[in-house]
């Protein structure tokens, strides 16, 4: 369904550009990419549990809680910032394990477990913040620097060149080895089309963003996570088990897959990624406060996953859904803000896009089942 999302993204970009010619400016695109990275990372985690056919409503609260734990430790308790980050992420992963065990061992629905998490972890966040309500992060600190770091063109260009060269090399090696094993081989142009398109689009983006401040490091973190998790899902035993459990848990169990372990791990991944998203959000704000991880962050993260093409019933989706979905949502948010439209309208437009995306998906699915 990716082609519909990309087409929709094009329509959205064109519309806002016509309404306000600053929308596609390098400066605004840079802002847009930075705005989306935190929620996009949370969305990535949500995809891990959506692939199982489950849901995690606590990801927003957990992201805020992790950021608050990090801030309390590093600012108030003077713990080294690296240790504070690791403890915050560890706490989030432990929370994910608790959610996963309540779901698997006790048999509670994941909706209820994580609904309790949504409320409870936000409560803990407020408790930890109770004096003051806001903790400012040092402007020169590591966390704040994350969102004030930009890759110069030579660096991003080199990274891209190495990555694309490695990708094409792997494609060619795989083609040769498939031919040697007498397996069907795609035509060469078909095999190289995707790397070529991605290379051209990325190179154009680097050149364009360099007219402003360069490629934001936040986006590199988010895109890197998308890429790594995509490889994990498609090329590791664990990734295969995620899809198997999401497709038919009973079949997976009978095939000897430890479905409890797969499920608990997915919830741990979700909470762990939520904590990274929370840290990125805190970095952009250079502060944590009572609203950290709250408001519409969770709902936008879920909506992004669904708009990007992840099924709520499990077994279908990819990490690229988080990237495409959050691009759609953040484009709408950003474009509406440029036009000074009230957030009431923004919510309604986002809702319409979400509904339209799911409608297109449902119709396409009905069409493919018709034969």
């Amino acid at each position, binding site marked *: 369904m990716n082609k519909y999302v990309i087409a929709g993204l094009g329509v959205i970009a064109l519309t806002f550009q016509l309404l306000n010619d600053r929308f596609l400016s390098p400066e605004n695109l840079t802002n847009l990419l930075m705005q989306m990275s935190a929620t996009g990372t949370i969305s990535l985690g949500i995809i891990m549990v959506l692939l199982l056919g489950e849901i995690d409503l606590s990801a927003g609260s957990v992201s805020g809680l992790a950021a608050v734990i990090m801030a309390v430790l590093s600012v108030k308790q003077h713990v080294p910032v690296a240790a504070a980050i690791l403890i915050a992420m560890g706490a989030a992963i432990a929370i994910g394990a608790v959610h996963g065990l309540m779901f698997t061992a006790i048999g509670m629905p994941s909706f209820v477990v994580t609904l309790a998490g949504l409320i409870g972890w936000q409560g803990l966040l407020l408790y930890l913040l109770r004096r003051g309500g806001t903790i400012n992060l040092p402007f020169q600190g590591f966390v704040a620097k994350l969102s004030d770091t930009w890759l110069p063109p030579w660096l991003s260009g080199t990274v891209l060149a190495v990555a694309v060269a490695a990708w094409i090399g792997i494609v060619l090696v795989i083609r040769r080895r498939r031919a040697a*094993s007498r397996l069907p081989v795609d035509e060469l142009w078909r095999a190289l089309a995707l790397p070529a398109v991605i290379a051209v689009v990325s190179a154009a983006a680097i050149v364009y963003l360099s007219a402003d401040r360069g490629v934001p490091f936040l986006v590199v973190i988010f895109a890197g996570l998308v890429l790594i998790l995509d490889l994990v899902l498609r090329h590791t035993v664990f990734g295969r088990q995620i899809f198997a459990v999401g497709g038919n848990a009973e079949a997976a169990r009978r095939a000897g897959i430890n479905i409890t372990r797969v499920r608990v791990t997915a919830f741990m991944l979700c909470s762990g990624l939520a904590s990274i998203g929370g840290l990125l959000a805190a970095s952009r704000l250079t502060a944590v406060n009572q609203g950290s991880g709250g408001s519409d962050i969770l709902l936008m993260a879920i909506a992004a996953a669904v708009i990007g093409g992840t099924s709520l019933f499990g077994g279908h989706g990819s990490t690229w859904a988080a990237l495409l979905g959050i691009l759609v949502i953040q484009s709408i948010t950003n474009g509406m803000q440029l036009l000074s439209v009230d957030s009431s309208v923004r919510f309604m437009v986002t809702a319409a896009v979400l509904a339209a995306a799911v409608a297109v998906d449902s119709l396409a699915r009905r069409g493919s089942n018709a034969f």
Partner: protein
Amino acid sequence: MLVAQDISKRYGAVQALHEVRLDLPAGQVTALVGDNGAGKSTLVKVIAGVIQADNGSIAIDGKPVRIARPHDAQAQGIATVYQDLALCENLNVIANLFLGAELSTLKMLRHMEMERTARDLLGSLDVRIPDIRVPVAMLSGGQRQSVAIARALLGEPRVVILDEPTAALGVEQTAQVLSLIRRLRERGLAVLLISHNMVDVRAVSDRITVLRLGRNAGDFITSEVDEAALIKAITGMAADE
């Protein structure tokens, strides 16, 4: 090959199996038939290790074996294909064949090796699937049944149990699955076929074991038994009564 003797199983007041005997010779298709409630499913579950019998023994090649769990049955080379197939419809044919037994190095999937093995296996069974890299959801019922049977063979079993493999299939797909069953026999496997369909049983089996009300009600050579004798064994009455 496999001999089960004196198998008894009681569920509360119901004697599901009473001193049942079942022979599964290598290179032959044995059909297990009987009316509903005759004990076919219970007997299969005992052999597959899903449930434990109260009494009785199972021997493979003359050696007694203990089957307490499904894992024990698999370790003894007994593969069971259940009626619901247990396939993941979102995964492709290769992924389903290797479900839970993925080939990997350092937890990284060995895609090419799995695809090569899958193609060789399906080819040797003469199973025709246009593209094995599409999700199983896109396949016909007969193709799915063939994938489920092929998966059972990846563990190199000696005994294959097929639970109603043609129940939900049309004429042509039934023919595909029956010819696949014949190829299992040619491979020298002991095949147990549970079926309600007497036409299929007659078409593909070498021997027929009849159960009635949890007891043995006759063993027949398929080519020698006539319809009336078979129906009498299944129902307990002569066909014209």
